[in-house]
C-alpha cells in the first residue's frame, strides 16, 4: 500500500474516533429536556417581573433620582466583560499560534455569543421607555457614548456569531453524515447551516482565510466594546468614575471574569460531556495560568485606580473612598477584592490549585467577585454626588435593588444559560476537524520520526 493510502486510512480512523467522542453528547436526552424545562419555567416567572416593570415603569426598581443606574447596568457591564473572552482565546492566543486552545476555542466563543447577545437585552431593561428603542437608530447622535456602545455591542455580537459559525461548518457536515439518532429537522438544520460543505481543499482555503480576517477584525472590536462601556462612566464628572484609566481597567477586568467563565464551562463539559481526553488537565493548568496573568494585570490597575485618588484624597473622592474602604460598602468591597481577585490569584500560583476541580471552584469565586465588582463600580459613585442630598425620602440615599429588579436580572442570567445549553446540545462543543487535524499532525510527526530512525539505521548499516 502506498503512503497516501495509509495516510487516508489513518485520517479516517482519527476522524471516526474523535467525532464519535465529541458528537456523543449532541442529543436531546432527558436531562437536557428537564434542564431546559426548569430554565423555561424560571424564565417565565422572571419575565412576569418584567411585565410589572413595563406596566408600572422604573419606579418598581430601587432606582431613584440619585442612583439612576443600578443593578441592570452593573449586570450589563458584567455581561459585556465576560463576552470578551471569545476574543482573547480565539483571536489573541489563536493568532499567536498556540494550538492548545483549539479544543476550547469554541467554548470561549459560545460564552462570547451568549453573553454579548443578552447584554443588548439587559440594557433595554434599564430604559425608561423601551418602546422607543428604535429612536436610537432614527435620531441617533454620534456624540453620545450610548450610541457608541449600541454600535460596538452589535458589531461584536455579529463578529462573534460568525466566528462561532465559520469553524463550525466542517463539523456540521461531519455531524450531518454521522449523527444517527437525532430528529430529522435537526439534520436539516445541519444541512442548511453547513452551506454544502464537502471538505474540499478549496473550501478549507476560503475558510482559513475568512477566519483569519475575522480574528483580526474582532480584536479592535472587542477592545472598543469594553472601552466604550467604561467610557459611559468615565466621560461623566463624578468622583469614582472620573478616571482616565477606566478603559484598560475595565478591559483587564473583563479578561478575568471571562477566563473564569471558560474554566467553569470547561469543567462542566469535561465531566458531563465526558470529554476528558479533549479538555485535559493541561488545559486547566494553562487557563489557570492565564487567569493568574490577567488577574495580576487587573490587580495592577486596581492599585492605580484606588491608590492615586486615595493618596490625594480630594474632598469628594475622599467621601467616595471612605464609603468603599470603611463605610457601608466596605464589606462588599473588601470581600470582592480579596475573595474575588487577590486570594484566587495567589492560590492559582500553586500547581495543585490549577487541577480541574480546584481551578473550577476558584473560578466560581472569581466570577462572583467579578459581578460584585461591577456593582461596586456602578452604584457607590452615584450615592455621593457633589451637592448634598437633602429633604428626600430615606430610600433615596442608599440604593437597594428590589425583588422585581433582581428577578429581571436573574432572567438575563437564565437566558445566557439557555443559549449556552442549546448551543452545546445541538452543535459539538469541541471542534472536531481542528482536533482531528492536530492529532493527525502528532501521528505524522511520530511516523516521520520513525522514518528518520529507519534512515539513521540504514546509514549506520551502510
Amino acid at each position, binding site marked *: 500500500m502506498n503512503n497516501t493510502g495509509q495516510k487516508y486510512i489513518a485520517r479516517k480512523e482519527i476522524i471516526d474516533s474523535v467525532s464519535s467522542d465529541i458528537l456523543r453528547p449532541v442529543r436531546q436526552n432527558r436531562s437536557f429536556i428537564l434542564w431546559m424545562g426548569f430554565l423555561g419555567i424560571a424564565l417565565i416567572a422572571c419575565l412576569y417581573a418584567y411585565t410589572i416593570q413595563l406596566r408600572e415603569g422604573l419606579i418598581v426598581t430601587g432606582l431613584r433620582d440619585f442612583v*439612576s443606574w443600578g443593578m441592570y447596568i452593573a449586570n450589563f457591564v458584567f455581561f459585556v466583560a465576560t463576552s470578551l473572552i471569545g476574543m482573547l482565546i480565539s483571536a489573541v492566543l489563536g493568532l499567536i499560534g498556540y494550538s492548545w486552545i483549539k479544543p476550547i476555542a469554541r467554548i470561549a466563543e459560545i460564552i462570547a455569543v451568549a453573553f454579548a447577545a443578552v447584554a443588548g437585552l439587559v440594557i433595554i431593561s434599564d430604559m*425608561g421607555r423601551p418602546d*422607543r428603542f428604535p429612536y436610537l437608530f432614527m435620531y441617533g447622535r454620534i456624540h453620545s457614548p450610548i450610541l457608541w456602545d449600541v454600535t460596538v455591542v452589535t458589531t461584536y455580537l455579529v463578529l462573534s456569531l460568525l466566528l462561532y459559525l465559520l469553524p463550525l461548518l466542517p463539523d456540521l457536515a461531519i455531524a450531518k453524515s454521522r449523527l444517527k439518532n437525532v430528529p430529522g429537522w435537526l439534520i436539516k438544520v445541519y444541512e442548511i447551516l453547513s452551506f454544502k460543505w464537502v471538505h474540499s481543499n478549496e473550501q478549507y482555503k476560503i475558510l482559513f482565510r475568512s477566519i483569519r480576517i475575522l480574528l483580526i477584525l474582532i480584536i479592535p472590536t472587542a477592545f472598543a466594546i469594553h472601552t466604550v462601556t467604561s467610557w459611559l462612566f468615565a466621560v461623566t464628572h463624578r468622583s469614582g468614575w472620573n478616571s482616565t484609566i477606566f478603559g484598560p481597567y475595565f478591559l483587564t477586568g473583563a479578561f478575568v471574569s471571562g477566563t473564569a467563565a471558560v474554566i467553569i464551562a470547561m469543567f462542566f463539559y469535561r465531566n458531563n460531556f465526558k470529554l476528558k481526553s479533549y479538555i485535559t488537565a493541561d488545559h486547566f493548568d494553562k487557563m489557570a495560568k492565564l487567569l493568574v496573568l490577567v488577574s495580576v494585570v487587573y490587580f495592577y490597575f486596581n492599585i492605580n485606580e484606588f491608590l492615586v485618588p486615595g493618596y490625594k484624597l480630594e474632598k469628594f473622592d475622599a467621601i467616595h473612598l471612605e464609603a468603599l474602604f470603611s463605610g457601608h460598602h466596605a464589606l462588599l468591597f473588601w470581600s470582592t477584592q480579596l475573595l474575588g481577585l487577590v486570594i484566587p490569584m495567589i492560590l492559582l500560583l500553586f500547581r495543585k490549585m490549577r487541577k480541574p476541580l480546584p481551578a473550577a471552584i476558584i473560578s466560581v469565586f472569581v466570577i462572583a467577585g467579578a459581578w460584585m465588582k461591577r456593582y461596586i463600580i456602578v452604584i457607590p459613585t452615584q450615592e455621593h454626588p457633589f451637592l448634598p442630598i437633602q429633604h428626600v425620602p430615606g430610600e433615596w440615599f442608599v440604593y437597594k435593588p428590589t425583588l422585581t429588579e433582581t428577578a429581571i436580572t436573574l432572567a438575563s442570567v437564565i437566558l445566557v444559560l439557555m443559549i449556552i445549553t442549546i448551543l452545546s446540545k445541538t452543535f459539538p462543543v469541541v471542534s472536531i476537524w481542528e482536533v482531528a487535524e492536530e492529532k493527525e499532525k502528532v501521528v505524522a510527526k511520530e511516523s516521520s520520526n520513525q522514518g528518520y530512525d529507519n534512515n539513521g539505521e540504514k546509514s549506520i548499516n551502510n
Partner: protein
Amino acid sequence: MRYAMAVDTKKCVGCSDCVVACQAENNVPHGYAREWVVELVEGSYPNLEMELRSERCNHCDNAPCVRCCPTGASHIVEGGIVLVEHNKCIGCGACITSCPYDARYSHPEGYVDKCTFCEHLVKEGEDPACVAVCPTKCLYFGDLDDPRSEVSKVIKNRKYKTLIPEAGTDPQIFFLT
C-alpha cells in the same frame, strides 16, 4: 441672548415656595421636584451660619447632559435654555448620571424631566414661576447679554459664586453671597 438666574442666598428664607410654584406650573408629578432648597450649616454652636440656596438646573453653557444624549432629546434652545423633548427621550439615564448637579429626574412616564426656566412663560415675556412667586424677591431672572436686565445688574454689583465650577460646565445660575 443668554438667559440666566441669580439667587440671593442672603435674602432667601428657605420657604420652598419656588419649589411648590414650579410643581404647580409645570405639572410635576407628586413626589418629584424640578428644584429644591439646600440648607448648609457652617460653624459650631454658638457661631453658626446657614446658607440657603434655591437650586435647579444650571442651564450650563457646556452642558454634559446635552452632549451625551443619544437621541437629541436633550437640546439647547435660544437663550441657552437646556430642554428635554419628552417625546424623543428613551429614558437611558445617561444625562442623569452625567449631570454633576443631579438636576434631572426620571419621570414616572419613563422619560427624563428637569427645569425648563419656564420656557413657555419666558417666551411670552413673563418671569419663570419660581421667580414670580418668591416672597423675598431673592430670585433674579433675565438676559445676561442685556446690561440693563435685572440679573446683569445684580451680578455686576454683588459678589457671587457658581456651583462646582471645577466640573467645567459653565453654569448659568449665580449665587449671590
